[in-house]
């Protein structure tokens, strides 16, 4: 009986560790998420600018876009890093929040 109980506890522990590891790998860290969602952005970065940079990276000439001041270099770097780090969704949430605040 004790062996069974121990086995169940070990299995639960192993599952929890595995799930925790997977979650940590696939999601942005909590600190990072909080930073993107809540921190004050630099003057040359806007959340919608980061999304626009992502769109232009997928369909246009990003250097020309920076040269014509449609997006900033910082926004392009953030967009590139967000795509690689899977944090673009956080930038969308930040942009939604900023748009809502601006429209009030």
């Amino acid at each position: 009986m004790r062996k069974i109980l121990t086995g169940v506890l070990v299995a639960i522990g192993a599952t929890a560790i595995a799930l925790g590891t997977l979650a940590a790998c696939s999601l942005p860290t909590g600190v990072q998420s909080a930073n993107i969602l809540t921190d004050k952005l630099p003057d040359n970065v806007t959340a919608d600018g980061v999304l626009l940079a992502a769109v232009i990276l997928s369909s246009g000439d990003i250097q020309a876009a920076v040269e014509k001041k449609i997006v900033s270099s910082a926004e392009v770097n953030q967009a590139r890093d967000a795509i690689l780090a899977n944090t673009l969704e956080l930038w969308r949430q930040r942009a939604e929040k900023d748009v809502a605040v601006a429209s009030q």
Partner: protein
Amino acid sequence: MTRKMWIAIGLALGLSVPVSFVAHPATAATSDAIAQALVTATLQNLGLNDISPELSQQLTGQLTDAIDAGVIDPAISAQVASLLENPALLSGLSDVFNAHLEGETSVWRASDLSKSDSSGTPGESSIDSGSNSGSEDSGEDNSGANSNSGEDGSGDDWGDNVGEDGGSGDSTDDDSDSGSSGDNSGDDNESGNSGDGRDENEGDEGDDSDEYEDDSLDDDAYGLPGPVATFPSRLRASHA
């Protein structure tokens, strides 16, 4: 007198027809529709499906300006325009977007403009840890990246990217070819084997050929939908 009258009529027609065409609501609406479809399709391709109408409208307005400024690839705009009547088919452009994203990111990474960013942005420590390791790689891969941008020079960007859109693997091949043909062959081995920076995180310490096999595993780590998940790994492969 008659001659002057005809000249005046000709000038008036010559001016009024183009002006009325540009100002025509249908033309303006089409431009907006292309921008809106482009915003939706590219962001969906990047895994963003829940864009609010307000944010979509804002991005559409900004992208319309970008289209007017000639920043958007005309071939992609034309493809999007041709699919406007059947928006469901826009998802078929994911290969086009991914190939373009790959090429633009490579060019951007090698450009001086990307290094002029001095902002401290949210999530800087965690996000930039990736880009810093990337910059280490780009230091070694600069010859490859530069030769690539040379081949794909700004004048040829549209043609090359669109031409290779159908086979995203082609662009990867081109990159690796240009890297190996130049001084970069030695650097490739260094970045592949030493595993510094981002390579270290991937655990790709094997030879370069294994990286393509490892891509599928890396894709899972990003937890993104198919087309998006393939991009970062392919990008890494192209810089290897």
